[in-house]
């Protein structure tokens, strides 16, 4: 059999790859499909047949920037509604050099990020054990379930008036608000992480001689880590949105307070810069968390 021609008498010959290959640039720009998609006959409805369309993204960005440039330089839009490129550039230099209201720009950013991290940290420290208890014990579940289910649908912003009444407007008040925003997210994430354990893993551990505590530490905890991490990521996002809003209401420092105060002085350029910074930081937090997740929990979704 070996080295012999195959059944129909011809030698085995590989079909050559298709001659025409679109350039890497065309593929990167999303103007050409890769060779898998090109040979598909069903493309509409196949999610993998939709490519990045990167060229169109560039078109969108360039169009928006052009629109900005033309409308402001031609005076079609008054600077008070939307500032010109130049004004934003000048303001950014000024903010960078002198800060805003005697507080350096980086400090406004830092204080907002610091509040978020502190709130999420305490939310996790309290929420994870509570979520575990609720997932493991009927008593804990019964005790905390009404509170968790009641608080879950309430947007954290709705708590601001009460928090101000109780705690005033100092740092404690803000961190308490963020703590509450993160707490219920973390409880629910930890609880569902615990409840999601495959019973065969728990049974396997007991059959290997593990004690209850060892099952908790070596099976239930690591098994819940992906869910807990998702909780932290969600909490970070929610808290970032909440901190900006809380600073809009009452704060001396922070990106949110910066744009609110700037508004009162009709400094639209500062407002726009603030909004861009908020967007960039929110995006950076999300990206950082995804990176951390890939690094810390490589087994996610592979059980």
């Amino acid at each position, binding site marked *: 059999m070996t080295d012999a021609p195959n059944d129909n008498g011809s030698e085995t010959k590989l079909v050559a790859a298709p001659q025409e290959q679109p350039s890497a640039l065309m593929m990167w720009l999303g103007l050409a499909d890769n060779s898998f998609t090109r040979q598909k006959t069903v493309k509409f409805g196949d999610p993998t047949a939709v490519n990045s369309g990167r060229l169109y993204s560039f078109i969108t960005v360039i169009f928006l920037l052009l629109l900005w440039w033309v409308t402001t330089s031609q005076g079609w839009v008054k600077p008070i509604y939307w500032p010109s490129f130049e004004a934003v550039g000048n303001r950014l230099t000024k903010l960078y050099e002198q800060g805003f209201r005697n507080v350096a720009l980086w400090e406004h950013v830092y204080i907002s990020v610091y509040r978020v991290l502190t709130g999420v940290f305490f939310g996790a420290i309290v929420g994870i054990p509570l979520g575990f208890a609720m997932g493991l014990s009927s008593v804990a579940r019964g005790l905390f379930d009404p509170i968790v289910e009641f608080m879950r649908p309430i947007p954290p912003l709705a708590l601001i008036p009460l928090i101000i009444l109780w705690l005033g407007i100092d740092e404690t008040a803000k961190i308490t608000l963020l703590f509450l925003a993160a707490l219920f997210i973390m409880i629910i994430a930890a609880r569902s992480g615990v409840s999601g354990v495959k019973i065969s*893993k728990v*049974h396997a551990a007991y059959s290997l001689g*593990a004690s209850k505590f060892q099952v908790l530490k070596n099976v239930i905890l690591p098994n819940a880590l992906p869910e807990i991490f998702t909780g932290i990521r969600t909490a970070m996002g929610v808290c970032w949105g909440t901190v900006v809003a809380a600073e809009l209401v009452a704060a001396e420092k922070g990106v949110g307070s910066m744009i609110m105060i700037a508004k009162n002085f009709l400094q639209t350029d500062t407002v726009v810069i603030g909004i861009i910074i908020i967007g960039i930081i929110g995006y950076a937090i999300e990206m950082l968390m995804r990176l951390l997740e890939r690094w810390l929990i490589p087994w996610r979704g592979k059980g």
Partner: protein
Amino acid sequence: MDDADHNGLSVDKVSMVFTLPGGGSVHALNNVSLDLASGELMSVLGPSGCGKTTLLNIIAGFLAPTEGGVFLNGHQVTGPAAERGMVFQQGALFEWLDVRKNISFGPRMMGKSKKEWGPKVDHLLDIVGLGDFGDKPVYQLSGGMQQRVALARCLANDPDVILMDEPLGALDALTREKMQGLVLKLWKETGKTIVLITHSVEEALFLGERLIVMAPRPGRIHREYRLPFAEQGLTISPREIKASADFVEKREEILSMIWEMEEEIMGRASA
């Protein structure tokens, strides 16, 4: 109890009745008794709903029987313990640990040092053919390799009895045949008592020194066989055994037995 000085596994008149939330009850097992001498390999076969998994869970100690009891070397089973190891179908490995940490889980939980379990785990890795995979995360392994890890993890604890719940059920046909050879080899080399639950008549016949066929509603032992094939499998090739007239005849006999049970259930359900 005449089983007090019995060396081996004994299931004594075990019945299991589940009460349904809406009233009514299900007789999952009715008066099941069997005795396994130390070192015997028994396969358990039956149509779905015959209570074979319930039986295994009772032996493992995950469920307490409504009546009767399970005894190992004379003492009664009251919960899971390291003396009775389990091999599950799939997905019972700890995916956050690498292969070596999975296999050494039992010894580590018992507070043994790496000096004690290290050489043993290396030896087990060789036996199951995963010598080069010790440091790999388990989720990078194929289904067949994962089940090899599950077997090794169970053996690392040196249990008296190994309970296997469809351990090869999720594997493709070829991998499954290869793994059957491995199970047979491990059984012979370690001399463990093994209870194997399977849906595959061929697997039950080939691996079971003893084979019980269970019947459903209520779950009970229907027939019991003593078979030569497992012993033959240590010297003759599995393919040859499975093609032999004796094997084929037994296979057809049991298949039609289970077929009839299924038909009867269908008939009762539609009546």
